[in-house]
């Protein structure tokens, strides 16, 4: 059988390197979720809601942790920005 060129389509210009930074999207998700949950944790203090998670204010704690994770992704994206693509070969 013949040897086909597997990389035949690679000559076409690849533009994927221009993709946006995924880290900012993750940061947005966690910061928004974190903010909403933190507020809900402060506002709602009905004993039934608290009892659901065994007395932990789980909304508040989850919210705070998410804000921290979101901030960490922001820091990472700022400290190590995407480099412009280097042409290989």
């Amino acid at each position, binding site marked *: 059988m013949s040897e086909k060129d597997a990389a035949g389509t690679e000559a076409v210009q*690849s533009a994927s390197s221009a993709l946006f930074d*995924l880290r900012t*999207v993750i940061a947005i*998700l966690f910061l*928004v979720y974190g903010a909403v*949950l933190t507020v809900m944790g402060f506002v709602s203090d009905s004993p039934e809601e608290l009892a659901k*998670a*065994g007395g932990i204010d789980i909304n508040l704690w989850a919210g705070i942790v998410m804000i921290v994770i979101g901030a960490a992704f922001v820091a990472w994206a700022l400290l190590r920005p995407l480099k412009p693509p280097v042409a290989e070969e």
Partner: protein
Amino acid sequence: MLLAQADLRLNTTAIDYVLVAFYFVLVLGIGVVARRSVSSSLDFLLSGRSLPAWVTGLAFVSANLGALELVGMSANGAQYGIPVVHYYWIGAVPAMVFLGIVMMPFYYGSKARSVPEFLRMRFNTTTQRVNAVTFAVASVLIAGVNLFTLGLVLEALLGWSLYVAIPVAALVVLAYTVLGGLSAAIYNEVLQFFVILALLVPLTVAGLARVGGWDGLKEKITTAAAGNTDQLHSWPGTSLTEIANPTLSVIGIVFGLGFVLSFGYWTTNFAEVQRALSARNMSAARRTPIIAAFPKALIPLVVVVPGMVAGVLVPQIAALKAGGNSGGITYNNSLTLLMNEVLPNGLLGVALAGLLASFMAGMAANVSSLNTVFTYDLWQDWIRPGRSDRYYLQVGRLVTVVGCVLAIGAAFLAGSYSNITDYIQALFSFFNAPLFAIFILGLFWKRMTGTAGWTGLVAGTIAAVLIDVLVRVKVLTLSSQAGSFVGASAAFVVGIAVAVAVSMVTQPKPDSELVGLTWSLTPRESREHTTTGEDAGWFRSPVTLGVLVIILVIVLYFVI
């Protein structure tokens, strides 16, 4: 049944839906932005081979974190307890490390764009076509199972009809994969990974808090089982395998699950391998499955444990475990019932988003890999060769649409199987075990011929189907779980035997055509990769990372 449905309905409020809606805005946004970066079929189908290792690694684990995984494994956790961790540890991590260290140099180094294409290079076109066709069929069926599971979830939680829920869910996945191709699918998989964790971690923490911590959980499980502590030890796992003899049970887990099923799935399933092939260089490709192995090793702590909590905390599941009347509730409801039991509004919305994400992760993985195999292996290499790249990009987009429509059909087919996990396991043993057999033989035995490739594949699949039929008509008295272990092992052994026999009577390929495709003919240097610049440092060495994750699993086995 009506009563059961009322029990299942989530106590959602407006804020929960706002959180879900926000997630969907991000998901579709990724699809729209990723579209800008698609200018060739390679961009669309393989992300232009440009992604960093942490992205492909998390996508690798996320592609496997579908609805089936979450719903099925938490259900198993509720039913069997700790032995379920075998699916994650011995049943995944060693194979993922093997893929990264041993096999990835051949996959990525050969520049094959898909698993079937690699088979064409190593064996012949027939092998490529046999594998491409079976893979396409399996992808559609598995995407269907994911869709069906999601449909059930939406029906139970939100009161949507299956006939509305299934097409609507398919439409969302379709929207972003048809726009942004594999990049959108992979980027969304990474996002999904985090949303799914945002569901699982608070659920586990809240659930454990309710039952009095880990010790409280163990105590309650022991009490419920009248002093029997089988559910609290991973070995010998007789309840899981349903093999009464402890020694045979351990052999079943180690060989059936840990070797044949697991290596077959992780090393040859293109839906997984594709994530590594889209990495930006050999080093990143080799690290992809190994980076994925770390979360994979830790995920059971937040999947199996909440399942176990549900088994003692949710009254209906506890009744089911005690053999009582659960009013139409099954173990598959464990996860959602626990969500309702322990999560307040707010986190409930996050959890719902995570659940929907987990479904989309599984389906998008199947659809995007189906795309690539159909477009490159079936269309470009077989049916319509020699067209422009733009043409194949259009084909790729069209296949996404057709694949989603077929998956909707398969979803209703899946509905006729009672236990979804069994259905998937049976599929894996039909397709993956024989594939792994000829793969590994072809890698280490250069004498293996092209004809041996496809005959071994077909013979192995027939063996697995035969075992499956024998179990179903009860000629073989095995549980469905043990049946799939035996079926996969038979497929592996028959595949090897037939491939060896056929190789003896057919002509092997000349050595010159096998360089880079078999172990002995590939110079050591070309199996290595650069270790400078962005690939420098011990923490970027695949072997070091692989050893670390194996140690992690051994430690986990000792701790739990």
